């Protein structure tokens, strides 16, 4: 029987020749068909993409060409400073803006960043002329906290006890978080504050707060005095002095707070390290492949003897004569092979458990009939009765 089907198959092939099943002929060995142009203009899989100009829109803020202040206004958290009498200022760019708010006061801080605060005019014995320089970490809104943050302020309270800890060379960390519903005592949502000085030794207030809710603000305060006349290392490696000017809210000089650093985990979008062209937004003059001096996407760039990247037929100005250009890397590197199969076991305990989706609905409508005296609500012109009554 097996030989019978084999013979039958051979007969069918002989009769139909090399015609395809769909009626089109199968290519001969010396015939080629180019793929569509749209496929041809791309170098190939895994090295292509929408191009730097498009990817830049998805890039994280703070990358090349895109600062945190560009684009749409960022969502902010309104912080309410309460507690000990003092005035609150902050770093705004290279300006030390003092006395921007007097406790109790409130100010908006764009989310996903850390700010340098300046507490001055602290009341109490021994604090005359002393300033404190805490940092304020403002976390990005989480779906759990969006509703709260768009309706409420986040209180940051400095107590006399906190100041005593700072004076005693202790660091005070305050974590203000919104408790999960199971940790709330009332349905009316309110924030909770974990203070490092009130916890047992070894307990991290941030870890503890993340276990019980969603962190919104972290205040870290010590007695370190900031030296604002300092030098900074520039991107090109040089050291340049940074000159800070000052502004005073008492003189009507108000400046918005600006972040000293962004919180990496709160930055949304494609990580900047994955985008060669950096950030951008529609309309911005960002490098687009094939436009202007930017090479075509996928064009090979190789090192040349003059130390610059370029096509291998340099020098320019003459006919292309270079046929071969070889660079050998003789370094003894030990680079492990890339991981080709990653296995990550995750377990959510307890796992999600929702009812099965509805697959059958029976709709039955019954119209009640009431006799006189059956209906207990007055049949008059109530607020929701028809005009004129029944």
């Amino acid at each position, binding site marked *: 029987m097996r030989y019978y089907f084999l013979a039958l198959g051979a007969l069918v092939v002989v009769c139909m020749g090399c015609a395809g099943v769909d009626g089109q002929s199968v290519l001969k060995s010396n015939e080629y068909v180019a793929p569509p142009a749209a496929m041809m203009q791309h170098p190939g899989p895994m090295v292509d993409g929408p191009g730097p100009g498009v990817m830049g829109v998805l890039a994280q803020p703070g990358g090349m060409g895109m600062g945190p202040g560009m684009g*749409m*206004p*960022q*969502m*902010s958290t*309104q912080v*309410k400073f309460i507690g000990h009498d003092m005035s609150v200022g902050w770093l705004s760019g290279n300006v030390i803006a003092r006395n921007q*708010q007097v406790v109790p*006061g*409130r*100010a*908006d801080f*764009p989310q996903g960043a850390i700010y340098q605060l300046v507490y001055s005019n602290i009341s109490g014995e021994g604090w005359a002329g002393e300033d404190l320089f805490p940092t304020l970490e403002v976390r990005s809104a989480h*779906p*759990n906290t*969006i*509703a*709260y*943050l*768009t*309706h*409420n*302020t986040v*209180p940051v309270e400095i107590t006399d006890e906190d100041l005593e800890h700072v004076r005693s060379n202790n660091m005070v960390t305050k974590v203000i978080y919104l408790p999960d*519903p*199971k940790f*709330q*005592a*009332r*349905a*009316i*949502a*309110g*924030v909770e504050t974990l203070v490092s000085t009130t916890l047992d030794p070894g307990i991290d207030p941030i870890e503890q707060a993340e276990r019980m809710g969603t962190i919104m603000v972290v205040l870290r305060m010590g007695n370190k005095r900031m030296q604002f006349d300092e030098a900074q290392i520039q991107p090109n490696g040089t050291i340049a002095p940074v000159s800070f000017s000052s502004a005073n809210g008492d003189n009507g000089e*108000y400046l*918005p707070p600006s972040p000293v650093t962004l919180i990496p985990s709160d930055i949304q979008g494609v990580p900047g390290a994955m985008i060669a062209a950096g950030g951008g937004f529609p309309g911005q003059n960002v490098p687009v492949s094939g436009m202007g001096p930017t090479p075509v996407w996928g064009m090979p760039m190789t090192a040349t003897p003059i130390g610059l990247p370029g096509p291998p037929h340099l020098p320019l100005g003459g006919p292309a004569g270079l046929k071969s250009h070889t660079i050998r890397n003789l370094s003894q590197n030990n680079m492990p092979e890339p991981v080709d199969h990653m296995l990550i076991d995750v377990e959510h305990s307890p796992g999600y458990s*929702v*009812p099965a989706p509805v697959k059958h609905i029976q709709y039955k409508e019954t119209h*009640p009939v*009431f006799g006189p005296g059956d*209906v*207990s*609500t007055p049949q008059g012109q109530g607020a*929701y009765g*028809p*005009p004129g009554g029944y």
Partner: protein
Amino acid sequence: MPIAHESSLRTAIITLAFLLTGPTAFAQSGAYYEPLNEKLPPGFTADIMARVRHDDMFWLQPVRVELPTAGTVSVYSATPVPIVTTSAPAQFSASTGHFYRLRIADMPEFPGEEIYPSIEILDRLHPPAGSAANYPIPVVLTEADLKEALSGRMVTRVIYLENPRSAAQKDPLRRNPRATLDPTDNALQEAGMYGRPMMIVRIGGRIPSGPNMPLSYFGSGGTVDPGDSVPAGSGVVKLSDRKRAVESLARGND
């Protein structure tokens, strides 16, 4: 004999399966499952429900905002400038499926204070033709709620339209729905058991500050009509209040 053994084994398996699945089935039979809740970001629930219902997108639902005694009510819709400012009780109409920001000020109980609650319109009423203004969704902001908001807490209320059958059959004095829920309860589900959720009201103490306030803070961009739905004599537009609201935004903070 082997057949009888197999039969008894099958019975035992079915019984065991019933014991294992029984409590779950009973637990789900008491209440329905509501995937949405009032703790989601403002506007999310209304948007989802609008997509599900496919209501008339041009329908403007009358809303009536009542304060403890007196005050002014401003309505924002994705703009830092209020669309309308009227005296309380204020009535306006707005499209469903959106959330709007209100500004409550000039209250004699809270002098100098202003509160910016938000309303999220989930559903619409179906009044007799031509009398929609007579059936607004009442938003009653009590003095207790406003006190909680000013003290730094957030009050969330779900307004629902009572099921007409239960409203007609049960004695009004004996109907006793739960007014305050536990933190872990789903207020939307609870409201759905009594009727049809119409609106989520969130009241907090944050005030907008600075010109860089995201427009999404002021609402999701639904249409607001202060026109004919405002009953004569109940709302008076005070231009001085509108100017003050703009000034407070430009001032940045208080």
